[in-house]
């Protein structure tokens, strides 16, 4: 066995996955080759490091999982149908993060440094972040209107064709309204969509640079920013930032982002 032969078998040897004949050949080689023997030691050091990197579940995860399991078992005992896990209320922490993520998606539009926002607890009532969320929530609930002709012209003057509200009916989404919105000094076109189940999608566009938190690796055109189970999609085209966020199925949201990203 040559050193090259050994190197190709190193992982299988370490895992005890070699056939007996090959294992003997490998051991014979190791007995005569200090270089390959030292490679075995490095491989053992590596696996020791890997084992030590295991992250234990936080106590709140244990508690949340056990609680969900017991509720499900109780439902089963009572003859109730199984709940859909995806529809259960998420754990408190995840819910808070989702809350913050949506608010951050809006405020990132205002070029606020979102990476700092994303780790803070839910904001105090009356804070700017809280006000932004309230605005987003109420406007989404009430639906947006249609801007006046003058406002539409202003948006077009700033954003060009990107100010138009794309037709997403192919994705089961109907337009629920659109408007111009001032996001900390940036004139943004905001469009809202709904699907038949009440799922909501918001598309925001404004002229400027991508927020730092939404920048993907160099040379990429579409980045996904995920927090919890929700994802916002960001891309930049012709000097306009696009941000898509929504509560619909996340696969569908991605397809829409890819579709719009290809068009813009």
């Amino acid at each position, binding site marked *: 066995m040559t050193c090259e032969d050994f190197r190709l078998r190193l992982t299988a040897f370490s895992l005890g996955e070699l056939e007996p004949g090959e294992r003997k050949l490998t051991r014979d080689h190791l007995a005569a080759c200090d270089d390959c023997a030292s490679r075995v030691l490095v491989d053992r050091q590596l696996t020791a490091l890997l084992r030590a990197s295991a992250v234990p579940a936080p106590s709140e995860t244990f508690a949340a999982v056990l609680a969900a399991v017991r509720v499900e078992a109780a439902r089963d005992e009572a003859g109730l149908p199984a709940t859909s896990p995806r529809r259960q209320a998420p754990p408190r922490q995840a819910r808070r993060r989702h809350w913050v993520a949506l608010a951050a998606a809006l405020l990132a539009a205002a070029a606020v440094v979102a990476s700092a926002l994303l780790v803070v607890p839910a904001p105090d009532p009356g804070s700017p972040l809280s006000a932004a969320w309230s605005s987003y929530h109420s406007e989404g609930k009430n639906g947006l209107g249609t801007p006046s002709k003058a406002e539409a012209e202003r948006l077009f003057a700033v954003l060009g064709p990107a100010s138009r509200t794309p037709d997403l009916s192919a994705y089961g989404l109907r337009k629920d309204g659109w408007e111009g919105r001032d996001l900390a000094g940036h004139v943004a076109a905001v469009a809202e969509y709904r699907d038949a189940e009440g799922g909501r999608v918001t598309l925001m566009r404004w002229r400027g640079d991508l927020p730092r938190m939404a920048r993907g690796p160099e040379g990429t055109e579409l980045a996904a920013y*995920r927090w919890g189970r929700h994802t916002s999609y960001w891309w930049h085209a012709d000097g306009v930032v696009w941000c898509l966020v929504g509560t619909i199925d996340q696969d569908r949201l991605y397809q829409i982002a890819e579709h719009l990203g290809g068009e813009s």
Partner: protein
Amino acid sequence: MDLEGFEAATVPHMNALYDAALRLAGDQATAQDLTQETYLRALRSFGTFEPGSNCRAWLLRIQYNLFCTQYRRGRRMPLVWLDEGETDPSLDLPSHEPGPEEQTVRELDREAVRRAIAQLPEDFRMAVTLVDINGLTCAEAATVMDVPRGTILSRLHRARRRLETMLLPELGRVQADDL
């Protein structure tokens, strides 16, 4: 429904499930959701679990399938993971371990290892998670990922060589007791 039997069989593996979920999903909130959904699915199909077989592998398979079908998003584009800036207090070493300086170095090593693993392609990362971290055999990992055993070995081999390159400084600090 044998809740007691289910908990006795599965709860000891929750750390492994959470660790694998965290490496797949990339953030703690999603990892918790994924772990919880895995347990709910496992509860419903506990009747199909064969007592005496590897429960951890069974759970990890449920979790991996769940991740592939419902959690994996936007594979063709880069995901921008943010550092949540949180330190898990449960990672603190027990008091009988060496002094604070060495503890710090070890914690830095752990962090470096986690980051290195996170840079691996998903298939490599999962193979490392299943076999090197969670102790499954290659055959069990092959069942979890629904690929041939040789594919797992190949992924592990390539992943380890990449990790060796990335973790060269940390490798020199592994203690003899760790091996």
